[in-house]
């Protein structure tokens, strides 16, 4: 559903909604995977991100997102210097991530303490973004809502259990998508919630024996 405020917005640092604002949002999403500013980040730019990224500040915007700056934050302009000061070690590479991928795409490998995660995302235009892969798993995350992704063994009542954890935290489920390759195989869930889930939600979900892997991604749209 198109919202008025997607059309009249976002408020952002220029010059390009896809190459600057969208890039910043992808950085913000990757930051969620490690729960804070990464110590190290490797950013592989694909397609038009690789070709015209420098002139559009795509590199600055990605680094800014990793540090938690939003698309309207004027610190984007000097994000690379700030990153150096704050100890975010970044490395940009130009690459090709595959023919089918959207031309404005990036693979971010982020490390913080013990944790290291990989995310592939695209900037679709007008600041909208789309995450297609996390840690090698195919996902579909738009960052328009707070989102929980998880991979679970196919046990009965799994959805009810997750829904109960969210309800206890007063989180309303907006959408839930479940995909499963085969009966009894692992189930992949993408859950969008209306409110920001608390830390305890993730911890509770992580405690479930049948959950193999889970992440929480924040809402990054305006």
């Amino acid at each position, binding site marked *: 559903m*198109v919202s008025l405020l997607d059309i009249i917005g976002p408020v952002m640092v*220029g*010059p390009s909604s896809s190459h600057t604002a969208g890039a910043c949002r992808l950085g913000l999403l990757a930051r969620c995977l490690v729960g804070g500013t990464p110590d190290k980040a490797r950013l592989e730019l694909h397609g038009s991100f690789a070709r015209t990224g420098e*002139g559009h500040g795509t590199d600055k915007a990605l680094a800014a997102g990793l540090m938690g700056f939003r698309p309207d934050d004027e610190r984007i302009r000097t994000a690379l210097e700030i990153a150096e000061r704050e100890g975010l070690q970044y490395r940009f590479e130009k690459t090709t991530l595959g023919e089918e991928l959207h031309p404005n795409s990036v693979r971010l490998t982020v490390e913080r303490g013990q944790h290291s995660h990989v995310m592939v995302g695209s900037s679709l235009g007008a600041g909208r973004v789309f995450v297609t892969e996390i840690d090698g798993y195919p996902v579909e995350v738009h960052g328009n809502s707070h989102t929980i992704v998880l991979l679970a063994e196919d046990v009965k009542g799994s959805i009810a259990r997750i829904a109960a954890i969210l309800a206890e935290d007063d989180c309303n489920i907006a959408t839930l998508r479940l995909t499963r390759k085969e009966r009894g195989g692992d189930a992949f869930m993408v859950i969008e919630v209306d409110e920001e889930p608390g830390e305890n939600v993730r911890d509770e979900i992580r405690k479930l024996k049948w959950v193999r892997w889970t992440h929480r991604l924040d809402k990054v749209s305006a």
Partner: protein
Amino acid sequence: MYSSLAAAIRDAESQGKSLGVLALEVESRDQARPVADIRAALGRALVVMRGAVDQGMVGDLHSASGLVGGDAAKLRHGPPGPLAGTPFRDVLARALAVQEVNAAMGVIVAAPTAGGAGVLPAVLTGLAAARGIPDEQIITALATAGLIGAVVAERASLSGAEGGCQAETGAAAGMAAGAATEMLGGSPSQVGHAVALAQQATLGLVCDPLGGLVELPCVFRNATGAAIALAAIEMALAGITFAIPADEVIDVMGEIGREMDVRYRETAGGGLAATPTGRRLARERMVQIKRSGA
């Protein structure tokens, strides 16, 4: 939001409302958010739009490549032309100003995109200043613009990479034309004609920025996009109608965009970007960007 302008016009007329008021109510229902909240968000957008106009008028901004900047100030302070002292010249200056701010990594409102961000603020704030229109009315007009943009997003595209510049500065011209027509007292059906008149003028417009950067011709396309919007507003308010309905003009814009060769869709492979001078400038400036680490 609506995916047909005709349907929105019909509802607005039958309920005796402006399209802007209707858009606010529909948005409130769609997003489960009070109208006052949405108005407040649009009000914040208006503040940023004005800030960009003011910042760009000073004339001391530099883009990454140095290809654009300082031209808004020339319209404001430079030698007069035949339109000196008219809202027309002021609107052109405002459009250049916002887009120069954008190219210099300043703060703007993408409306609908960053590349086309100069048209709507220029037309709305310029005409509102000329006519002494209060902010509350400009905010309602922003909602009208949002509705028109949503229809374009649904039926065609709002991305130069997908549909050429007709989908960015062209769509912005349609949004600005419709929104300002309503702000100046036009009826919902006059808004429809204004959108059609503006959008038909930009059909086929390619996206061909030098070096792929949102600078040249983008800055100037915003000024000419605003000029097209002003022409459409003047005609629509005079009671001129355009025989092809806005929805169909928008559909054809989408169709042309889909058939446009990839060279004309933000890849810098064709159009002005591929002219001998365009290529030379892009080459020189890119080297400069790398060197300065900008």
